[in-house]
């Protein structure tokens, strides 16, 4: 079986528009959760979100920016970073052996909503000709494929909160099984629109704003957790077949050694420990690793009432006695829940945790919950740790679980 390594990282996040900056902010315990500034904020019960600072017109020019939904602006930005970071020579690379797999939950949500506003509120008689092309779920992947003239596989995965875990895992399999040599893989999401936020409000899963500090509103695994904070952004990694990466002298961040996906089929929103455990076991089995080999778990850790105790139980089910000694953190406490992009930025956090031998904290964990009793790396990151293998958990409404394992690269 061919081996697959990570050679490039790209990220645009509520905690910085560059992967190392993102990781530095995670280690410092900074928060990307803030009051929204949108014109519709007064009509929201939940006025906080983890939004990205990005001036698309300054970056792409008016013409290009106006034909790309925000989600595609993000995917293109992160893909360009990842390609440059990997040092890929796009002039000479075999484009037929390079593809893109991207996850997104809502695709071009803002373009859909803009169209509805024109039609239903403003009674317009026509829509912008680009509406379909900006709104379609595969637009964000397509923008990257067009920009870099990729000729290999191009797929979009939409499995809600696990979308980009599945995208990275399936891209890993494409290389592993010989269908491609280089894959761009990750996710993008830009759903901070009025309609989308109202829909999430109706589900009663959004965090209450912390009265002292809006940035501390997302409290995974804490007794006073009140829900998730919606976020936006993109994370894209370059995956390469190991031999070709070595042959071109690429900088190798890590190797993907395991991927497991499974369906948690009991309920559309309520997770079960059995369903989550199945995906973790599948990833360990793929990697040929034991629970004791895992030095850090980046949890799904949404800070919803239901996820956190269930994820705690599923980790215990899989890790047994090792569970209490395995550091588990939810970086969503800082970057929020980027939905279709969240697994990708969390995977990037895992890769950089290996590189820096550092574990980012779970912030805002002051009040314990007796049902959540693992080592969540509370409020303070750890440096100078010895990490060889790390696990990234992603679960989702609808049931699709994705678990990725990254390992320090050894030839």
């Amino acid at each position, binding site marked *: 079986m061919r081996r697959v390594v990570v050679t490039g990282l790209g990220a645009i996040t509520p905690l910085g528009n560059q992967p190392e900056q993102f990781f530095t902010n995670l280690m410092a315990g900074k928060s990307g959760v803030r009051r929204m500034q949108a014109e519709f904020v007064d009509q929201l019960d939940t006025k906080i979100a983890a939004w990205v600072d990005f001036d698309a017109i300054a970056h792409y*020019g*008016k*013409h290009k920016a*106006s*034909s790309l939904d925000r989600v595609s602006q993000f995917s293109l930005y992160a893909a360009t970073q990842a390609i440059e970071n990997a040092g890929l020579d796009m002039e000479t690379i075999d484009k037929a052996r390079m593809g893109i797999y991207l996850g997104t939950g809502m695709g071009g949500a803002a373009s859909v909503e803009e169209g509805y506003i024109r039609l239903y509120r403003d009674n317009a*008689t*026509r829509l*912008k*000709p*680009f509406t379909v*092309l900006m709104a379609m779920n595969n637009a964000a992947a397509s923008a990257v494929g067009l920009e870099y003239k990729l000729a290999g596989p191009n797929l979009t995965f939409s499995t809600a909160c696990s979308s980009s875990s599945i995208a990275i895992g399936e891209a890993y399999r494409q290389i592993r099984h010989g269908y491609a040599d280089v894959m761009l893989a990750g996710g993008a999401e830009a759903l901070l629109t009025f309609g989308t936020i109202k829909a999430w409000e109706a589900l009663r899963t959004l965090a209450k704003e912390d009265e002292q500090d809006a940035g501390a509103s997302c409290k995974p695994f804490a007794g006073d957790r009140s829900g998730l904070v919606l976020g936006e952004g993109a994370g894209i990694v370059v995956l390469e077949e190991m031999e070709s990466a070595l042959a071109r002298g690429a900088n190798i961040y890590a190797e993907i050694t395991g991927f497991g996906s499974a369906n948690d089929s009991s309920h559309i929103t309520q997770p079960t420990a059995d369903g989550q455990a199945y995906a973790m076991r599948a990833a360990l089995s793929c990697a040929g690793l034991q629970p004791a080999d895992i030095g850090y778990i980046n949890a799904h850790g949404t800070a919803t009432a239901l996820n956190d105790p269930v994820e705690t139980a599923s980790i215990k089910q899989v890790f047994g006695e090792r569970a209490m000694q395995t550091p588990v953190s939810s970086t969503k406490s800082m970057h929020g829940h980027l939905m279709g992009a969240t697994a990708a930025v969390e995977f990037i956090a895992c890769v950089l945790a290996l590189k820096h031998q550092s574990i980012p904290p779970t912030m805002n964990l002051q009040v314990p919950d007796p049902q959540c009793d693992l080592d969540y790396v509370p409020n303070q990151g750890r440096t100078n740790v010895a990490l060889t293998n790390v696990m990234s958990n992603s679960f989702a409404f609808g049931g699709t679980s994705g678990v990725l394992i990254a390992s320090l690269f050894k030839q």
Partner: protein
Amino acid sequence: MSTTFDTLKQIVIDKFDIEAAKILPEATLESLGLDSLDTFDMIFSAEETFNIKVPNSEVDIKTVEDVVNLIDRLVKEQAPAA
């Protein structure tokens, strides 16, 4: 009062970041770098600006002047009755 040409020229400049000097009546849309999708996008803005509806049967246009003539004709034809 600005002419149809001037208004259309401004639409093209705003939308596609094209140099003003290149936008001449005889210039083909192709020479300006506009593909069929861009042309639809330009027509969309013209429809909004001039308050007209361009039927699908009328989109066979090659030059900037063709667009100007089309707009002028449709404005006249579609003007609300006095």
